[in-house]
């Protein structure tokens, strides 16, 4: 079959918060942009599994991309999130020193932050820390207060970026792994996905932990990404009040350490530890890693009750070697192939600024950027029943009774909200997709109650048979078939099976 051909000015590879942010930034201009993503949905990589922090920007070495884009990104957050209807809370953050030695280091951090241009940093004494955070380790000596710190929802932001980009003319291809990039005379000219060939004047590599593999497709091997795995515990909303803002320990060498922070949804999250792993698919949690997370978290908040944990998970950060900084700019020797790679922490905070930086690099490389008169920067926040007051809730149910039919009991998500999520501009076909958009299944029972019901709604609304509904795309099927099917399949082997089953011990201790 002849592949579909798409002519694009820019192909952006990777629909995490970085790629979607770049695509949305470019959608302001009169350029043809295609955003391709190998997974079944946007935000399914690093974006869905991180600490969800908007960093102030005192950590990074002054003069680096990380330092500049963190501080700039932080400043862009309020407007970006307001325009796109994304949860964001400017609650400030604290770096908590547990010893006099550590307290001394706070001043170093403060100075570094000031050189980076972080406003309002202040070292505050023990009493003030305890007043701000009554559940903090009483052994606290002092803390660095960063008023510009905050929290957000990374996947909400990526989904909102993607929806706004699509609304402004960007084409989004999901389940579209890049299989090759055509290069001629030192310039990339096409990007191939199964069944699609895109002619591209520029290619942006925002492929996260796979960015080195993508760069190799243009014959370059400038960096290598080694994923750094971070494990997390998520806690019930019941203990969400234990902290009011991100609490950091004094940073360790490898990372910012194990953080305890509220989420914008009212939960508590603790993590990450940091372990370099060889396998880019290794999203496993480990008993050792989770114990490390709990121990680290309890150094900050000793009263953190493990029995209130509702899930644990791991995320992979794209750590690039040999360069410790973000890799942003044209690939050496392929000037129209622009990397936005090695985006580890503070990548989420930097994302809006990375989008601007990549835009400028594209302009310098010769992409004409004429502003579109009809660009609409606003994407309305989807209605969330649980966020409304009683009058608004009543009015909604009157307009459509399905607003009164609660599917997810833990997060109070009605059927109408799920249906709406399934029909938005960026298609959502999976259980995880529904969870990230509506929070159905994100609560304390983790989909035990609503899972079967959401499968049924996806089936009804999208015409996907229940056996074909997946957790997160690919072969992550929820169900294996109709009941009795396996009996028919195995009719032939039945006799042998019985004998074997009969031979197995009944009770082994």
């Amino acid at each position, binding site marked *: 079959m002849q592949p579909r051909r798409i002519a694009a000015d820019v192909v952006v590879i990777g629909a995490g918060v970085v790629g979607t942010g770049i695509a949305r930034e470019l959608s302001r201009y009169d350029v043809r942009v295609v955003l391709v993503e190998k997974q079944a949905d946007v935000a399914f990589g690093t974006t869905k599994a991180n600490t969800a922090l908007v960093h102030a920007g005192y950590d990074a070495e002054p003069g680096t991309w990380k330092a500049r884009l963190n501080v700039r990104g932080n400043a862009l957050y309020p407007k970006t999130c307001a325009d796109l209807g994304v949860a964001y809370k400017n609650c400030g953050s604290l770096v908590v020193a547990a010893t006099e030695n550590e307290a001394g280091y706070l001043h170093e951090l403060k100075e570094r932050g000031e050189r980076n241009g972080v406003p309002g940093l202040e070292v505050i004494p023990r009493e003030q820390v305890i007043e701000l955070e009554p559940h903090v380790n009483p052994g606290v000596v002092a803390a660095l207060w960063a008023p510009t710190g905050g929290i957000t929802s990374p996947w909400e932001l990526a989904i909102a970026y993607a929806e706004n980009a699509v609304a402004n003319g960007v084409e989004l291809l999901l389940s579209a792994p890049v299989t090759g990039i055509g290069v001629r005379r030192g310039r990339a000219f096409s990007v191939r996905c199964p069944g699609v060939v895109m002619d591209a004047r520029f290619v942006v590599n925002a492929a996260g932990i796979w960015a080195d593999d993508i760069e190799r497709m243009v014959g370059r091997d400038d960096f290598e990404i080694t994923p750094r795995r971070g494990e997390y515990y998520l806690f019930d909303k019941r203990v969400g009040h234990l902290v009011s803002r991100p609490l950091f320990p004094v940073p360790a060498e490898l990372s910012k350490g194990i953080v305890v922070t509220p989420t914008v949804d009212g939960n508590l999250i603790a993590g990450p530890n940091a372990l370099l792993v060889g396998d880019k698919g290794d999203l*496993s949690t480990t008993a050792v890693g989770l114990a490390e997370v709990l121990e680290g978290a309890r150094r900050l908040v000793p009263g953190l009750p493990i*029995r209130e*944990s509702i899930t644990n998970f791991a995320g992979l950060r794209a750590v690039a070697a040999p360069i410790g900084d973000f890799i942003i700019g044209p690939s050496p020797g392929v000037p129209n192939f622009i990397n936005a790679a090695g985006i580890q922490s503070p990548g989420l905070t930097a994302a809006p600024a990375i989008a601007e930086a990549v835009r400028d690099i594209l302009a310098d490389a010769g992409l004409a950027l004429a502003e579109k008169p009809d660009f609409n920067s606003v994407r309305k926040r989807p209605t969330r029943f649980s966020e409304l007051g009683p009058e608004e809730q009543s009015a909604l149910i009157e307009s459509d009774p399905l607003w*009164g039919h609660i599917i997810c009991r833990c997060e109070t998500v009605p059927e109408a909200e799920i249906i709406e999520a399934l029909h938005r501009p960026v298609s959502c076909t999976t259980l995880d997709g529904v969870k990230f958009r509506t929070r159905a299944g994100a609560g304390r029972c983790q989909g035990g109650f609503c899972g079967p019901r959401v499968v049924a709604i996806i089936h009804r609304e999208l015409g996907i048979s229940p056996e074909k509904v997946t957790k997160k795309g690919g072969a992550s099927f929820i169900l*294996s078939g109709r009941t009795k099917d396996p009996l028919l399949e195995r009719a032939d082997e039945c006799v042998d099976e019985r004998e074997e089953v009969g031979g197995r011990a009944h009770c082994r201790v």
Partner: protein
Amino acid sequence: MRIAECDIAVIGAGPAGLAAAARAKQCGACRVILMDRDRELGGILNQCIHNGFGLQLLSQELTGPEYAEHFINEARDAGVETMLDTMVLSVAPGGRITAVNRSGGLMRISAKAIILAMGARERNRGAVTIPGMRPAGVFTAGAAQRFVNMEGYMPGKRIVVLGSGDIGLIMARRLTWEGARVEAVLEILPFPSGLTRNIVQCLNDQGIPLYLGHTVVDVHGEERVSGVTVARVDDSLKPIPGTEWDIECDTLLLSVGLIPENELTRDAGGELDPVTGGPVVTDEMETSVPGVFACGNVVHIHDLVDNVTREAWTAGEGAARFVAGRQPAGLTIRTRAGDGIRYVVPHILHLDNLAARDVRLFMRATRPDERVQVEAVVGDQVVFSKFERVVRPAEMIALTIPRGKVSSGVAAFGSETRLIVRVRPRDCDAGPKGGAKA
């Protein structure tokens, strides 16, 4: 916003809610509204299509839906009003309920008394912290049961079950009958968590191996489960390095316990027992909030539905008495779990009730034992004692204290006096122990 008023509002129409509502109505309450978030009455019984329900109470071996039907009919005949597909969003400390459904929208329901019967939810992977990958194919046993029994879909073809709770055992058999292959059932404890009859009928009779003292230490597979690593555990339930082996499978079912669903109880301001996870209740099944009653798995996890129904009758009667202003007053005594007992429900007993009627206590043993006396002790006096051939943590013990056994004279002991229930080996000296351990 619509507003409804009633004598008694019952939240949850599973076996507890059904029996409590019917009994309250039969005892003279005027308007009793029974609410449930599902589309049918009966709660989880509807997906429990196996038999074995009602042996004790109805002297019949019924399926879950049949047992439900019996009590649905009783509630209907008694004149209980039902509201289905209705989610209770909150119960304000004053007892005002906010609920929502498609036809009524957002509603306020004010009731003179409330009976909480929300049941329990299953402990999931996060609650037991199973490390590993996070592919599709990890289900709680109850969610899988719904898929198989209610919707006609298979969760997988090669199954490993973690936990020997009853739902997991029942599902191991069900999935085998549906053509799946259950590779193993793993139980971290040295003894099974489910009823003996389920071990026999669901595992032994099906040739499914049960590995006691084992757990899952890793889950494999990126998209769908491809296998699990299991290991033996030591006495402190920690996996023993070097004992691991892999089992290929596409599904991991979790049957690792139930958590009483007490979000609304917390809303209402009810005091919770950290051991049961449910509200502290009196022998009327009244919580620490006057007029708010509770029964069934929301109070403590039961083994048999028959016991749920019995407890619900007590709650229904208690709520009806409350509405009629005929509640027992006067002195109370608290119960406490003694040696060999994990918890006792109810927590508070009225001396008037102890004098006037038989009072049933439900409890669980901390460890399996044989040939024991289960004793209720006040001060240094054994007020009632019962021989049990076998006690197992999986099976609830009921101890009915005959009327008049605890005399009102115990009031003389003072408010710190407890009615302690303990397990004592039968064959050793029956001399007084000077009070049981707490």
